[in-house]
């Protein structure tokens, strides 16, 4: 029979044995190992004599006996949150943040709207062109209707006259504005258009095909229609140029 080693028995006593069941089984059948285990147990049962009880406040007495030998730790410097260097640093940080904010917002404005910032006149012109294009569009449709109506018989409905009356005051304003801006071709075309609109609007009775034929002939509306188409093409070309510049700049 293979006996247990002393180390195994000591481990078993200390509760550190990994195979407890094997050891216990062996101890039941092996008298020699059982005797050694008993000796170990008996030896371990013997306790160290206890010291005489310390009197109350023993720890405080110890402190009294050693405190004379101890030097206090140097107090840690208190953190002052309002010292001048800290304040200066905080001020510099605030100034930096403010400068960055202002600079950033200005730069962003310039970057997003360069045309507005650079030249307000250009922006104004862009608005004028958009409105003028709309006006020329409506005028062109009126002249096309007028040309078509010239081939019909009898009285025509008064929608042409109503439209001419609406366009007339706008046209006058545009003509005056463009004239002041120094665009003689556009001014001449709007002047011609104004006279045609005036003729249509001021016809005393309902517009007949004969009236239209007369107007077409006297006022050369075909030529005017051509002129307006050319001018529309010109304003349309100029307008996207401005738009595309704006779009390109805002990206």
């Amino acid at each position, binding site marked *: 029979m293979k006996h247990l080693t*002393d*180390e195994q028995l*000591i481990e078993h*006593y*200390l509760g*550190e044995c990994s195979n407890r069941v094997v050891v216990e089984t062996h101890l039941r059948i092996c008298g020699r190992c059982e005797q*050694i285990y*008993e*000796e*170990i147990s*008996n*030896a*371990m049962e*013997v*306790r*160290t*004599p*206890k*010291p*005489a009880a*310390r009197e109350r*406040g*023993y*720890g*405080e*007495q*110890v*402190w*009294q*006996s*050693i*405190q004379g*030998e*101890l*030097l*206090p*730790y*140097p*107090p*840690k410097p208190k953190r002052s949150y309002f010292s001048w260097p800290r304040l200066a640093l905080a001020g510099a940080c605030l100034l930096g943040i403010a400068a960055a904010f202002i600079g950033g917002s200005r730069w962003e404005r310039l970057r997003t709207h360069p045309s507005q910032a650079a030249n307000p006149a250009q922006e104004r012109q862009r608005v004028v062109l958009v409105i003028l294009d709309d006006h020329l569009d409506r005028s062109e449709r009126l002249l096309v209707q007028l040309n078509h109506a010239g081939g019909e018989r009898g009285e025509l409905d008064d929608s042409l006259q109503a439209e001419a009356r609406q366009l007339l005051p706008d046209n006058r304003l545009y003509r005056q504005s463009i004239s002041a801006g120094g665009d003689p071709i556009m001014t001449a075309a709007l002047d011609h258009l104004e006279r045609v609109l005036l003729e249509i609007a001021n016809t005393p009775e309902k517009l007949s095909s004969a009236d239209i034929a007369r107007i077409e002939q006297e006022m050369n509306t075909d030529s005017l229609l051509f002129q307006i188409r050319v001018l529309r093409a010109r304003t349309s070309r100029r307008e996207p140029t401005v738009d595309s510049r704006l779009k390109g700049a805002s990206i």
Partner: protein
Amino acid sequence: MGQKILPNRTGILRSNTRMGKNDHALIRAVLSGDKNAYGALVARHGESMFQVAYRITESEADAEEIVQETFLRGYRSLAEFNGRADFRTWIYRIAVNCALKVLNRRNSEAAVPIAEEFDDERPAIQLADKGAGPERLLLDREIEVRRQVAMEKMTPDERLAFVLRHLEGRSIEEIAAALEITPNSAKQAVFRAVQKMRRSLAPLWVKS
């Protein structure tokens, strides 16, 4: 934290506020210059350190010396104390080291020969049953003598490992850390110590 508590007329700190503070708060106070805060720590842990020191040395005088040395060393190294650790565990390790030093010194001096016979100067036996007869008293005395002989035959490492494992209930890893040896060496030290104790006492069990 900043509240300074002056010692009373006996110089003993009795402030409820201070006593109610946890160890870490007291350590912070000490490191901020309040030396007396350490007094509360000594008062709190002094007795338990004495018990440990006595179990290891079995001498009240040595245990007293170890306690003083422990707290002195503790104070001087307090700046190195890791705030996340437990102060009791930390000071306990210092106490064990101081005890080991005392055992080594005692061992090297070897002024007193190992006594095989009973010595009246040794501490009184606690095992004796007051109601026991003279034979039992005699046996108890002999047990104590043999126990002391076994303890003195142990090397300082073995003695410390034996006390920490058997009487203090420390794990092998803790013993290894305290003795600064490997866990296997600590285990072997415990085995050797138990063997010495068993062999010293074995004749008595046969007799009884």
